[in-house]
C-alpha cells in the first residue's frame, strides 16, 4: 500500500477546515469560558490558554512523530528505511524528552502556584460586597448580610467591586459556578467556603451547579446580574422598602425539595437562617457582623 498524493491533500484540507471551524466557533458567544467578564475568570483563562497552547504543542509533536514513524517504518515490501531490531537506547534522545516534559511542567507550574495563591486573596484596596449563598435542594438562596436582603435563584451584584460569596449548603453538595466570572467552589453542609468574584462590566451572567445533588439537580441554575454601584444601591433600597420579608414559613417552603420556586426577592430574612446551617460561623458575615447589621437595621 503506497501513500497516494490526493489522499494526503484531502487529509490536509480536512485538518485545516477542522481547525478553522474550531477557531470560528471558538469565538462564538456560547463558549462562555472564553469570554471572561471579570478579573478572576480572566486570570483563569490566562492559565487555560498557556497550558492549552503548550499541550497542543505536545499533542501535535506526538501526532506528527507517530505519522512519520507509521509511514516510514511500515512493514511493506521494498521499504528502504533502516531496520535495527536491537536499537533500544539513545541517551541524548531520552534526555531530550525528559528535559522537554520537565520544562513544560515547570513553565505551567510557576503561574499555577502564583495564581492559586493570588486568587485566594481578595484584592486589598477594595471593600467587598458580601453575599451568603446557601444551596438548598434545588434552589439557590442568596442573603446579603450587609444589606440584610435576600434573593432566591438570582443574585444582583455591583460591577467593578469584588464580591465575596460565602458558600454553604443546607443539603447535599453543589458547586457554585458562574463561568464568565470565574471558577467554581463547593457548597457543603456544615462548612463555609469563601469565593470572590468580580464583574468588570454590567451584564447578565448565568450560573449553575456542577455537582450532582439529586433528582432536581437540573434546576440548580441562577442568574447573576451585575449593575453599576449606584444602581445596585437603588435596587437594595427598593427591595428593602417594597418587598416582603423572608419569614420562617417561607424558608421552610424553600427547603422542601419537592417545591420548585421561581426567582424571588425578600426585604429581610430571619437572622438565624444562615447560621443555622453552618453552626453559627461564617467568614465575613459572622455572628458579630450580623448582630451589628441587625442593630443598624432596627427601627429606632
Amino acid at each position, binding site marked *: 500500500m503506497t501513500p497516494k498524493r490526493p489522499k494526503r491533500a484531502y487529509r490536509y484540507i480536512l485538518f485545516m477546515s477542522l481547525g478553522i471551524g474550531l477557531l470560528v466557533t471558538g469565538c462564538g458567544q456560547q463558549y462562555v469560558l472564553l469570554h471572561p467578564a471579570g478579573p478572576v475568570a480572566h486570570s483563569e483563562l490566562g492559565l487555560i490558554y498557556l497550558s492549552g497552547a503548550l499541550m497542543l504543542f505536545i499533542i501535535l509533536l506526538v501526532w506528527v512523530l507517530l505519522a512519520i514513524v507509521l509511514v516510514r517504518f511500515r512493514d511493506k515490501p521494498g521499504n528502504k528505511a533502516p531496520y535495527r531490531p536491537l536499537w533500544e537506547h539513545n541517551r541524548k534522545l531520552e534526555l531530550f524528552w525528559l528535559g522537554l516534559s520537565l520544562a513544560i511542567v515547570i513553565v505551567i507550574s510557576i503561574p499555577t502556584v502564583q495564581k492559586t495563591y493570588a486568587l*485566594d*486573596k*481578595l484584592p486589598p484596596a477594595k471593600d467587598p460586597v458580601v453575599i451568603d449563598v446557601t444551596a438548598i435542594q434545588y434552589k439557590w438562596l442568596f442573603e446579603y448580610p450587609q444589606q440584610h436582603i435576600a434573593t432566591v435563584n438570582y443574585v444582583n451584584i455591583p460591577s467593578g467591586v469584588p464580591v*465575596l460569596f460565602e458558600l454553604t449548603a443546607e443539603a447535599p453538595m453543589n458547586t457554585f459556578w458562574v463561568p464568565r466570572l470565574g471558577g467554581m467552589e463547593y457548597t457543603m453542609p456544615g*462548612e463555609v*467556603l*469563601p469565593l*470572590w468574584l468580580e464583574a468588570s462590566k454590567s451584564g447578565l451572567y448565568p450560573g449553575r451547579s456542577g455537582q450532582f445533588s439529586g433528582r432536581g439537580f437540573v434546576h440548580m441554575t441562577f442568574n447573576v446580574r451585575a449593575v453599576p454601584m449606584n444602581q445596585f444601591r437603588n435596587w437594595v433600597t427598593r427591595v428593602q422598602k417594597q418587598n416582603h420579608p423572608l419569614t420562617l414559613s417561607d424558608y421552610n417552603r424553600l427547603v422542601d425539595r419537592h417545591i420548585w420556586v421561581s426567582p424571588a426577592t425578600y426585604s429581610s430574612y430571619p437572622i438565624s437562617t444562615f447560621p443555622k446551617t453552618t453552626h453559627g460561623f461564617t*467568614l*465575613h458575615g459572622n455572628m458579630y457582623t450580623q448582630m451589628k447589621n441587625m442593630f443598624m437595621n432596627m427601627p429606632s
Partner: protein
Amino acid sequence: MAISRHGKHTRVIGISPNGPTGHGDEVESAYLAPRFEEEDFPWKQILGYIASLVLTALAFGAVVKHILPPAFLIGFILFLAVLQASLQLGVFMHLREGRGSTWQIVTLTLAILMGIGLVICSIWIMTFKSGVS
C-alpha cells in the same frame, strides 16, 4: 548470610551467601538470600517484653504527670509508640527473617510511608480551610 550479633548463645540457621532462590541473578539473590536466627533461650523475647512494658509506662506516666506542653507531649508519646512498633517488628515479627525478606521489608516500608502520608495529608486537607484575607 545472617550475621550473629549475640555471641555464642546464638545458633545461626543460614544459607550460604550464594544460596540461590531460584529467581533472579546473583546480585538479586544476595539481597534475597534466606536468613534466620534463633537462640537457645528466649532472651530477645523477654527483653522485648520488658522494654514494651517500660515504654508503655513511660508514655502513661508522661501523660498523667503532664510533664510537657501538649504539643511536645503528643510528639513524645508518638515517638514512644514508634519505638514500640519497631520493637514488635524486630523482636516478635522477625521482620528481617524469611526467604527473600527484602520484599516484605519493601512492602511494609512503602505501606508505612503511605499510611503516614495518608494521615498527615488528610489532617492537612481536612482541617485547614482557606479564609479570604
